[in-house]
């Protein structure tokens, strides 16, 4: 029992992180059909800004650094939309995908050129690693925070999407962007909002990723973006609810693989996951939980 609860808690915190990441990727895709592979670099930028504030400004209070990291992620996400993705907005999806790859390479190498290829450390408060005994299991403070922050972020996002005009416009744009523009809503605003939300979610995820690693390096965005991508496909690409489910599903899958796969084939984990991704794309493109697209919905 204790063991099961422990693994469930692990799944919740890992899955929560993936859900944030996948949601950030999905919200942009649902609005403008862009598979934003530069998303990992948004996380890296958050990390490097935190590192810069620490190294140059000498600030090491986590409660100051963390909001700065989130803010940096929002700013870079919106900026990237403005300078890199707007010119290719109406191009085929493949053009946007390649642009995103280009941006990703560009930012990565910017850090290599300006900072270093080696990793740099960012201070993480010791209390994050503290273990709390909650009776039937032990949980780290960071896991608790991660799960809580994910829950709050999801609620907040739900409120924005359901209760505000811009949220409504974003949801409508996911269905039919032309219609949204026809009723007089500014397309640039909707898209900028989508990128801002995406950056915010990436920033939140980044804080926990960096707190776990304790260091930043130019290649740190690669794994998170792949995870986000897999989670989004599992849940049905472009579906927001699906992205959340996909994130937790991927978390559960990873914990499961870790427990059952013998060491000799544990290395093949990524191969299994991507075979699953391919199978879903071919046989259930709406994702494991999604419903079939209806006639008149935006197609791929």
């Amino acid at each position, binding site marked *: 029992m204790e063991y099961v609860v422990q693994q469930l808690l692990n799944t919740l915190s890992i899955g929560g992180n993936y859900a944030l990441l996948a949601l950030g990727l999905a919200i942009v895709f649902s609005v403008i059909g862009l598979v934003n592979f530069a998303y990992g670099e948004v996380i890296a930028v958050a990390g490097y800004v935190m590192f810069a504030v620490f190294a140059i400004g000498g600030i090491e209070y986590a409660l100051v650094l963390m909001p700065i990291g989130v803010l940096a992620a929002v700013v870079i996400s919106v900026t990237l939309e403005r300078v890199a993705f707007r010119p290719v907005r109406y191009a085929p999806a*493949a*053009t946007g995908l*390649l642009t995103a790859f280009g941006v990703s390479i560009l930012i990565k*190498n910017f850090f*290599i050129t300006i900072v270093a290829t080696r990793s740099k450390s960012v201070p993480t408060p010791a209390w994050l690693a503290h273990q709390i005994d909650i009776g039937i299991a032990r949980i780290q403070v960071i896991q608790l925070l991660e799960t809580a922050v994910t829950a709050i972020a999801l609620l907040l996002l739900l409120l924005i999407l359901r209760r505000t005009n811009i949220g409504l416009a974003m949801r409508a744009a996911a269905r039919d962007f032309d219609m949204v523009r026809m009723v007089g809503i500014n397309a640039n605003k909707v898209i900028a909002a989508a990128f801002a939300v995406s950056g915010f979610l990436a920033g939140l995820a980044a804080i926990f990723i960096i707190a776990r690693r304790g260091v930043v390096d130019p290649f740190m965005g690669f794994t998170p973006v792949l995870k986000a991508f897999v989670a989004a496909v599992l849940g049905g690409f472009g579906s927001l609810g699906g992205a959340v489910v996909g994130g937790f599903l991927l978390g559960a899958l990873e914990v499961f693989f870790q427990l059952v796969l013998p060491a000799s084939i544990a290395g093949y984990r990524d191969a299994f996951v991507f075979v699953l991704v391919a199978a879903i794309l071919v046989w259930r493109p709406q994702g494991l939980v999604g419903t079939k697209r209806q006639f008149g919905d935006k197609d*791929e």
Partner: protein
Amino acid sequence: MNGSLRSLKGAALTALLPIAIALVVIALGDGAQVRILSIFLINLVIVIGLQMFMGNSNIVNLGHVTFMGIAGYAAAVLTIPTTIKQTIIPNAPFALATFQLGPIEAGIVAIVVAMVIALIVGIVITRESGISATILTLALLVIMHTVLANWVDLTRGMRALYGIPMTANVWILLAAAVAAIFFGRWFRDSPFGIQLRASGESRIAAESAGVNVRFLRLTAWVLGSGIVALGGVLYVYLLGSISPKSFYFDTTLLTLAMLILGGMHSISGAVIGVIVVTAGFEIMRFFETSPIIFGVQIPEFLGLTGFFLGLIIVLSMALRPKGLVGTDEIDESWLRRRKSGLAERR
């Protein structure tokens, strides 16, 4: 027949530039420059292989390096002398450690293996269109890399395989590149290529005109993967040692950038793209290694070549999404300009 003669001439014209570059470098260059030329020629083969599916079917392919990796590893494992194999991969499956093949036989086997795998996965991938097909090719790349990195008995995992006889020389590479140019151009101008390009512009229109889109996509996918596999085999025979790192995102994005910068819809685009990116890379590499210019030591800028690569992709997507050459082959555009009359020239 007039048409096929014209594509033959066009291919010859396109091949002229790399041939001229190769002859100049071989005649005047030092060892390091011939080595850059060799890599350039291999990239040319790979990019033309990539062009065959991506350029004609209009589906972005992120998985072509998969077949470079499969064929490269197959050729390596088959050609490494048994004495070396007994130490580095003694437990190789299928008794591979007990025999070795000559470079030509091994190369043929490697390419056939890659094409058979291409056929199997191609049947699934060519069902899909647009971004889902692209994501499938991406999944393929990750799966191949994971297998290469973990099948330690066969590939030695992340550690390098070495001892491959270095049988490739610059003349063989040049011949392969020229052959690839002719083959790529032939396919593009053949009825297959024309129908496939039509389906790339509008699948529905092409299908209603009786084009068998899936069959054509599969044909281009398998043939293109075969050319990429040839590139992988030559790469292995040139370097003599390989590791899975050579067959992942870096190589994928580099060759992809070459193709889209030049223009993915034509062979001349592929050739120009490889030339421009290679030239740009060598210039950047010069600055990267802290050179002395006019007596001033320029500081070291690691990551400059990568920065340049990213910049190429972003700028060409934003400014010239059809590439430097555009949709048509260079000779086709020339011909059209001549036909439209000199008087009408703006």
